[in-house]
């Protein structure tokens, strides 16, 4: 007889995971893969660990010296929590653009990361915020930058006995402007074809730019960040940064004719997102 366990403490969860349990948080990705496996006649998991009742994974401490975002925090909470809107509006915006009400109700940031889709909107947003994953296993806890945890489309370095507790995030400088944009196939319930997260501090003291869905995993474009920091804020700089981001894409992914649309979109959406972030930082457009 298969078992579904939803412990309310971390120690128990780690012990269950170590027995080879499949993890479920919201289920919005997992239930689809289980359905697919069933249709293909493959076996269903014998042991499922529901991580949503573990207190540490539900922590949301954004005002802390080292802000922490628990893995089981849902997109609904990220979309509606006033502290998220105040400290990380780009994350609130990204969450509001995920799926549907139903998907946001149960879908979590930890599931978004562990599923490791190149198009993951939450991952793209917290990558811009310097997310470092906190992982737990019977061997103890370890930290790994999210950009290193996710290695390729739907691939990551999570060990078979590990679970994600949450993410440490960087504190942004006072007054930093933030923006998040997403291009999907249609308005609702659309997987991103492109998403861009940007944060800019006043006087260009700090610039953060992450781009997802067009790379194997969402990533910071540090060369573009440096280019912006060294420039004169204004439309020309945003355009230049957009072109640099597009070049970065062709360098990583190669140029295929199918990419022509993407190259154009990356340039345009990156420029627009940087301009919005700058305006929110109080800069003149």
């Amino acid at each position, binding site marked *: *007889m*298969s*078992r*579904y366990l*939803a412990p309310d403490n971390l120690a128990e969860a780690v012990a269950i995971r170590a027995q080879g349990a499949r993890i*479920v948080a*919201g*289920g*919005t990705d997992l*239930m*689809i893969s*289980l*359905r697919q496996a*069933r249709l293909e006649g493959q076996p*269903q*998991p*014998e*042991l*499922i660990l*529901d991580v949503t009742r573990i207190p540490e994974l539900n922590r949301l401490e954004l005002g802390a010296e080292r802000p922490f975002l628990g893995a089981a925090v849902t997109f609904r909470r990220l979309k509606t929590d006033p502290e998220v809107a105040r400290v990380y509006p780009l994350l609130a915006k990204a969450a509001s653009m995920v*799926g*549907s*009400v*139903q*998907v946001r*109700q*149960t879908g979590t940031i930890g599931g978004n990361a562990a599923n490791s889709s190149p198009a993951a909107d939450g991952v793209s947003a917290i990558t811009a915020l310097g997310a470092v994953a906190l992982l737990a296993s019977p061997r103890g806890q370890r930290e790994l930058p999210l950009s290193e945890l996710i290695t390729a489309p739907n691939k990551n370095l999570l060990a078979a006995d590990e679970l994600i507790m949450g993410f440490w995030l960087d504190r942004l400088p006072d007054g930093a402007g933030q923006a998040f944009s997403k291009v999907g196939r249609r*308005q*609702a*319930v659309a997987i991103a074809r492109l998403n861009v997260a940007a944060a800019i501090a006043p006087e260009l003291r700090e610039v953060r730019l992450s781009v997802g869905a067009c790379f194997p995993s969402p990533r910071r474009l540090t060369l573009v960040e440096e280019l912006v920091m060294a420039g004169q804020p204004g439309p020309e700089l945003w355009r230049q940064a957009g072109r640099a981001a597009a070049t970065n894409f062709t360098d990583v992914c190669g140029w295929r004719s199918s990419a022509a649309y993407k190259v154009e979109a990356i340039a345009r959406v990156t420029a627009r997102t940087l301009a919005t972030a700058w305006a929110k930082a109080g800069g003149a457009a």
Partner: protein
Amino acid sequence: MTLDFTLNGQPVSLEGVPAAESLLDLLRHRLDLKGTKEGCGVGECGACSVLLDGKVVDSCLTPAWKAAGREVTTIEGLARDGQLHPLQESFLSAGAVQCGFCTPGMILSAQSLLSDNPDPSDEEIKIALAGNVCRCTGYHDIVLAVRRGARALRGEAPEADES
């Protein structure tokens, strides 16, 4: 292990529910409640929407065991004492029901919205229903139905010039 939860106000206790079973399969196949529809099976159509502790979820994406100790409401649970729920009334009166396949999900999504926000704008209604697909009606009559149902639930008289 026994799966205990409250379904439409009644306690339910089930043995032998597999760990990977969806709430949709549990409702439709184990409990024979066919009001919850199976459309896409992958979170895209909302036909399988139910309320879990009052909030709308896609039951096809929800493990059945998530219901443990909680309250599940399906479309069968909305009518009280033989009286249709105000949203059921308004969907009928607004002509928002054609084939009816999407209707249970639409009504439960609308109910979830109205429990958070009793007086939503049309835009808020559209966002709340974005995860529910209707192949028959334009969404116009559905939005109208939700507006009407909202007024009824607030105890207000119907508006004269509805469009």
